[in-house]
């Protein structure tokens, strides 16, 4: 008889989705933070000029 391992299957794919999604989210957050710093920098540069 085929064992019931559905819970483990679901847990495995939750890990995959959260892992990949979490990493993409971290890239988005870091990119947004960099963009903010660049904007601040260009603002500072234009104020000096």
């Amino acid at each position, binding site marked *: 008889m085929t064992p019931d*391992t559905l819970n483990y299957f679901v847990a*495995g*794919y939750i890990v995959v989705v959260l892992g990949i999604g979490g990493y993409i989210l971290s*890239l988005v957050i*870091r*990119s947004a933070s*960099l963009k903010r710093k660049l904007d601040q920098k260009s603002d500072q540069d234009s104020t000096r000029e």
Partner: protein
Amino acid sequence: MIKKAPKTLLVMDALAALGLISALVLVFFFTPVEQTMGMVQKVFYFHVAATWTGMLGFLLAMVASVAYLKTKKLDWDSAAVAGTEIGMVFVLIGIITGSIWAKPIWNTWWTWDPRLTTTFIMELIYAAYFVLRANLTEIRQRARLASIYAIVGFTTVPLTFLSIRIFRSIHPVVIGDSSSSGMFAMSSSMLFTFIYSLVVFSLFFVVVFWHRYLLENNQRNLTTIIMEED
């Protein structure tokens, strides 16, 4: 000095997203349920693909590190950072999904089997890569030492890959030996989904690597500009 993501990359983003969703659909609805393991066998498709992607990241980091030592161009250092970081994330996904698979099949979450042990050591060695980088502030010195470390650290990757062939291991040999212990006979739909997942994850790796490379390069360039002004 600050580079933006090209349109090609944005198209590849969409393709990779579609690829991942379609791979999930294949795993969930197209592949049959394996008789002796049940549904948990389906973890195998993304477990192998994630670990493959991780090792691809480490390979790229090693190649980029060699290129940095040869050319002294900091772009290669950024590529090494991107490859290592992605490698760590995907190998970690591989370790956790493998552990989840192991519980109902081996009756334990973790065992110090040669494959599991070498994978764990490999992950720790690459974690130390970031500890090393964090403790070096001078850009050139950091890039040089990190490159040497990434090249030496890469020796754990073929060791991990070959561990189930060299040592006695309970871990199934997926590539090359279908008669190994714990291996199951793959039907054509299983084999198709397995190869499809590998291809999709490889494409996803290229996309994520490109984004991470651009981010690292831009962060370094901004830091350099600020330091030069100060």
